[in-house]
Every structure is written in structure tokens, then in C-alpha cells.
């Protein structure tokens, strides 16, 4: 009990859809009349509606979060994942007190610092140093705290030379680095981070992730992350919460949570229809299967076949696919030009076949994203033709290098590199 840092207790958040403006005064008066004077239920709050952004619903109020209850232990680094609109950001907003819940209660132990967007409150006319003070105090640091850390902050941001120059003269990258540096050196017991790791150049990102790892490992700090980058989430977080339509769908270890999340994406192993522009270039039929077998296993070749319609002469045609791992990490890219060296195709219908040789992919889930395009001009295929397939262990037993269930030993390539072992 005592090591729980944050407790969400039946938290809900309601948002009103549509335009706030004309008509709301009438609604407000009506609501006040119904609830306060006649002690009835709020006429605009329709219970039992979930927040599905694609489906049409009646009533103009939705739950962004609905009866969220969970505990986070002190020192946990928790990743919150979910589709767009699942309520991740709302959850963090509630926690950072930017807005308040409609029902329920969030209890927390210690100071909550939020890193919702870096560089909050930067004033372009102030110098870097002044902005560090400004930004730091907005985030709840005292002057003395900032003075103590300012050298570290400047050093981390790498803007020493510009520190007494107004921020409006900074490059956008520098501004962001400075903002992140201030936030990273704030030391609350609970830190809330939303998509900020995607800032700066590659070198700075590495630094930022490293800093976040330090933060979460040392000192028993509790950290909540929201990101769409499954890779960095997996590296940073120990536990995960999966939100769907404003409700907690799964909570557990980060790896399991990510798997649960990705599992939800409909598995589609063949596509039949048209994806693209029928007047120019379009993908017709596509499938992924085991060559000569009914199940894709490690020792079977994976055959990817698709039809394309070329309606018009396209100078530089791309027809291939990207192979991604289950964490959306791109693994390989294949194109018909790789072998045939043809720059383009005459108008007509074509059938293309690719084969991933056996013993290439390890056990696990993979995605194929087709890339049918005119080079450097336009890509015609979309997500709807994405195919997903599973490579299973098959009947042969191999060593333990590939068991994905053991996080350290996960291997994406099924290597067959072993040649010999000799006793000397």
C-alpha cells in the first residue's frame, strides 16, 4: 500500500463535442435548471456511450476517459499506449492538473512535474539564461534550485555560446534542446512526459533518452510516458498501460502491453480490392503465404505476391514492399527493380512475386507495407493494404536464441551463422 505513488480512482473525463458558442447558454441554463433546481440528471450527459471517434453517436458529450482505476507503484516507469484518441493525453493532462476530472479522484504522493511540451513559456525577447529561469519557475522550481543547476542545464542543451542571446535568434532545434534541458533537470517525484523524446537531432535524442533512463533508474522517481515510438517505450518503461476508447484495456509488463496493443491491429494476410489511383497506378490483389505449405514457419519460404495495374506510363516506378517487425521497426525493403533493373513498366496489369528465403525471419509477427509509387513523386498505396503474418516455430526445434517471450533473447533474424565448434 505505502509504495503506491499514484492512484487513479474511477476517473472519468467528459468532453463536449461540436462548437462551443451559440446555444451553450441555453444548454447551461437548462442543465442548471434540471440538475440544481429539479434535482434530475444532467439531460446532456448520456450514460453508456463510449468514445469511438469513427462511429457516429447521439448526444454531444463523450467520455475521453471512463472509470479509469489503477495504481502505479513508486519508482515504476510506466508507458501509456493506445491509438489516437484513446485518452492518453487526457490522462496526462489530468495528472498534470491542466484540466480537472469530471468524476473520480487522482491521488499522488509527491510533486508532479510535467513535460507536456518543451519550451513552455519561452519568451522570444528574453535571453537563453532568462528563459531558463522563466521556464524553470513555471515548472515549479525555485530560483535557488535553478541557479544551482543552470550550468548543467546549459551544458546539457549545448547552447553555451548563445546563452545570453535572445531566444528568437535561436534555431528551432536549439530552442527545443534548451526547453528539454530545463525540463530534464527539474526534479519532481513524479514526472509526466508526453511525446517529447522526438525532439532535436539524432545525437540529442540519444542524449535525451539517456537522460530519461537515468531519471527513471536513479532515485526511485516515478515516470509516466506517452509515446507512439514503441521502440523507445520498450527500452525505457518497465510497465505499460493500454488504453482503448478511454478505458484501461490491459496493464502489465511493457513488452506484453505492446504486444497486446499490436495484436489488436487486424491481422490481414491477404488483400483483395484496389489501393491507389485507378487512373494511374493501383495495387489490386496481394497475399502473403508459405511457399508450398499452409503455415509460415521458420523453415518455410515466405511468398509475397501482388498484382498492380499500371494505367499510364510512369517514368520511374516503384513496386515493392517494406518488411517491418512487430514493433514497427523497418527490417527490409524489396523492390522489383532490385533484380530486373527495369526503370519502368509499360501500361498494363502485372503480377509480381517475391520470396523471402527460409531461415530468414525468426518466430514472431511481421508486417508488410506495400510501396507502389512514382519515385520521389507520390506513393499510391496506403495502410489499408498492409498485410500481417506470423512466423511460427514449426515442428523443428531450434536453440533458444529466438524465443521472443524472453525479452533479452529476442532476435529478429533467424541466423544460421553457426559453422563449427572444435575442441582444442
Amino acid at each position: 500500500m505505502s509504495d503506491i505513488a499514484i492512484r487513479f480512482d474511477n476517473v472519468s473525463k467528459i468532453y463536449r463535442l461540436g462548437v462551443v458558442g451559440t446555444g451553450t447558454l441555453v444548454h447551461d441554463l437548462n442543465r442548471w435548471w434540471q440538475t440544481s433546481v429539479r434535482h434530475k440528471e444532467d439531460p446532456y450527459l448520456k450514460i453508456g456511450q463510449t468514445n469511438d471517434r469513427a462511429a457516429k453517436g447521439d448526444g454531444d458529450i463523450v467520455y475521453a476517459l471512463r472509470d479509469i482505476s489503477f495504481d502505479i507503484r513508486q519508482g515504476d516507469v510506466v508507458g501509456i499506449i493506445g491509438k489516437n484518441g484513446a485518452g492518453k493525453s487526457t490522462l496526462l493532462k489530468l495528472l498534470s492538473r491542466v484540466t480537472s476530472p469530471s468524476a473520480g479522484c487522482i491521488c499522488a504522493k509527491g510533486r508532479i512535474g510535467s513535460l507536456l511540451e518543451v519550451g513552455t513559456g519561452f519568451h522570444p525577447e528574453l535571453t537563453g539564461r532568462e528563459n531558463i529561469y522563466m521556464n524553470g519557475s513555471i515548472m515549479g522550481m525555485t530560483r535557488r534550485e535553478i541557479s544551482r543547476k543552470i550550468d548543467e542545464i546549459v551544458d546539457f542543451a549545448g547552447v553555451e555560446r548563445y546563452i545570453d542571446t535572445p531566444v528568437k535568434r535561436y534555431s528551432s532545434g536549439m530552442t527545443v534542446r534548451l526547453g528539454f534541458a530545463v525540463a530534464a533537470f527539474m526534479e519532481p517525484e513524479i514526472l509526466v512526459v508526453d511525446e517529447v523524446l522526438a525532439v532535436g537531432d539524432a545525437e540529442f535524442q540519444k542524449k535525451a533518452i539517456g537522460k530519461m533512463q537515468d531519471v527513471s533508474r536513479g532515485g526511485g522517481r516515478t515516470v509516466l510516458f506517452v509515446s507512439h515510438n514503441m521502440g523507445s517505450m520498450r527500452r525505457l518503461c518497465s510497465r505499460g498501460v493500454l488504453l482503448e476508447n478511454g478505458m484501461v484495456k490491459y496493464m502489465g509488463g511493457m513488452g506484453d502491453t505492446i504486444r497486446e496493443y499490436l495484436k489488436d491491429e487486424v491481422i490481414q494476410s491477404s488483400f483483395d480490392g484496389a489501393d491507389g489511383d485507378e487512373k494511374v497506378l493501383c495495387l489490386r490483389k496481394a497475399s502473403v503465404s508459405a511457399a508450398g505449405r499452409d503455415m509460415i514457419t521458420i523453415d518455410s519460404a515466405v511468398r509475397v505476391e501482388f498484382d498492380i495495374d499500371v494505367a499510364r506510363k510512369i517514368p520511374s516506378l516503384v513496386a515493392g514492399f517494406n518488411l517491418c517487425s512487430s514493433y514497427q521497426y523497418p527490417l527490409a525493403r524489396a523492390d522489383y527493380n532490385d533484380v530486373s533493373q527495369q526503370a519502368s513498366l509499360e501500361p498494363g496489369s502485372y503480377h509480381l512475386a517475391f520470396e523471402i528465403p527460409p531461415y530468414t525471419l525468426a518466430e514472431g509477427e511481421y508486417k508488410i507495407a506495400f510501396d507502389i509509387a512514382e519515385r520521389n513523386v507520390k506513393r499510391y498505396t496506403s495502410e489499408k493494404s498492409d498485410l500481417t503474418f506470423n512466423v511460427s516455430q514449426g515442428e523443428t526445434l531450434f536453440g533458444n536464441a529466438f524465443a521472443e517471450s524472453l525479452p533479452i533473447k529476442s532476435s529478429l533474424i533467424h541466423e544460421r551463422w553457426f559453422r563449427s565448434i572444435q575442441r582444442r
Partner: protein
Amino acid sequence: MSEWTTVIKPKNSLLDIDLKGIWRYRDLVRMYVRRDIVTVYKQTILGPLWFLIQPMLTTVMYMFVFGGLAGISTDGLPQALFYMAGITLWNYFSTVFNKCSNVFAANSSVFGKVYFPRLVVPISGTISNLLQFLIQFCLFLAFYCYYAFFTDSPVHMNATALLFPVLVVMLAGHAMSWGLIITSLTTKYRDLTLLVSFGLQLFMYATPVIYPLSAAPEKFRDILAFNPLTSIFEAFKFGWLGSGSLSWWGLLYSLGFLCVTTFLAVVIFSRVERNFMDTV
């Protein structure tokens, strides 16, 4: 449970002001004040001189329009001094009011990302404008000295001038509480923002800024007495210039009015600040 240090709940009691929080964020108040003052005239040649130029030009204009063309009485006082007294006070009121009346709208990008007691912003706005006001007041004093010692105009200070700090605080209080009420209401209904800018202008004419109360016809004087700023302006002019009237009842009324509006402002503001991000 007592061991939680932060409890976030939907609705708190009516009077839920986080005074402790504001105190904890006092460094932020300081930073905001500093920022306001430093940044206003950055990249200008005359810099802080603009603090003085603006009231001076306004005074000259008023002397021309109200004193020259309209011929409104200044109670026998030098026009420059009379107008400057009014303008200095009124400027403070209107800048604080304007600043406070769009706290939410102007700061929504910051408020949408981090939490800190929202009252920090209007408080720091009031303080930074106070510094501006004091600079302008020094200008007024300079004019005052000139007229008092080098001309034979009938200006004479009296003990009521000691009320000055009280009057300034009351004026700031009025400006802030009205501003906070307006900003809280405008997060949802934008109508008021349209009213505010010209309403403030109209309100200036309903306050004895450019005319002495004694110049107003008898029947309007009673109406003007309902304006809580009337007694403040009159008392200020009475104390420093020796004209006008000092009405203790008027000041008491103004103070009572201030208490009510402050209470209202705090209640409404603390209600709105919790959820305004959803409607602004």
C-alpha cells in the same frame, strides 16, 4: 487519506484558493514581473522613456480637446497637472484591468501545458504595472513641484495625500477583481470581450478623470457616486492638488464594493481555472 500529498478531484469547495501554492510560486511572480518590464520596450531606442512619453502626449491632447475645445473646468488648477493626475491613475486602472481581463485567453498556451496557480499571472501583471505606475507618478510629482514652487497656481497638498498607498491598492483591487470576473466569463462566452474594450472607454467618462466631480450637474453627481472609482479619484485629487472633495462615505462604499467583487472574482476564477482548457 492523509498520506497523499496531491489529490485531484473534480470539484472543490466554493472558496478554494491555493494561497500556499501562490506563495510557493513567488519566484514565478518575480519572473513574470521581470519579463513584463524587460520585454515591453526591447529593441526600442527610447526604451523605458516610453513610460513617460505616453502620459505626457495624452496630457497635451487632453489639454487641447477637453481644456481647449470643450472648455471643461479643472477647478482652477493648471490643466496639465489636473489631467496628468487623472491620466496617471486611470492608466494604472485600465492597464491592470486589460491585463487581467484576458488572462485566460492570452495565456492559454502556457496554461494548457503546465499547472501553476493561475492567480500568479494576474498578480504579477498588477505588480509589474504598479512599477510602471510609480514611474509615471514620479513624472506627475515633477510637474507638481514645478507648479507648486515656480508658479503661483493654487495647488497645495494636504494630509489626505497620505491616503495615496491605500487608494492605489484599492484601485488595483477594483481593476483586478473586475478583470478576473471578465476573463472567467469570457472563456465560455466571448461576447464580453467585445464589450470590454469600448466599455472601458465609456467607463472613463463615467469617472471623474478629465473633469472634477464639482463640474458635474447636481443630479448626475448622485449617479456618479455609485461608481466606486469616483471617490478614489476625488480623494487623490483632493489630497495632492487641494481641489475636489474627500468623501469618507464614498471611500467606505468603494471598499465595500471592492470586498464583494473580490470575493466574487476569486470564486468565479477558481471555478473556471480548473476546466477552462476545455472551453477556451
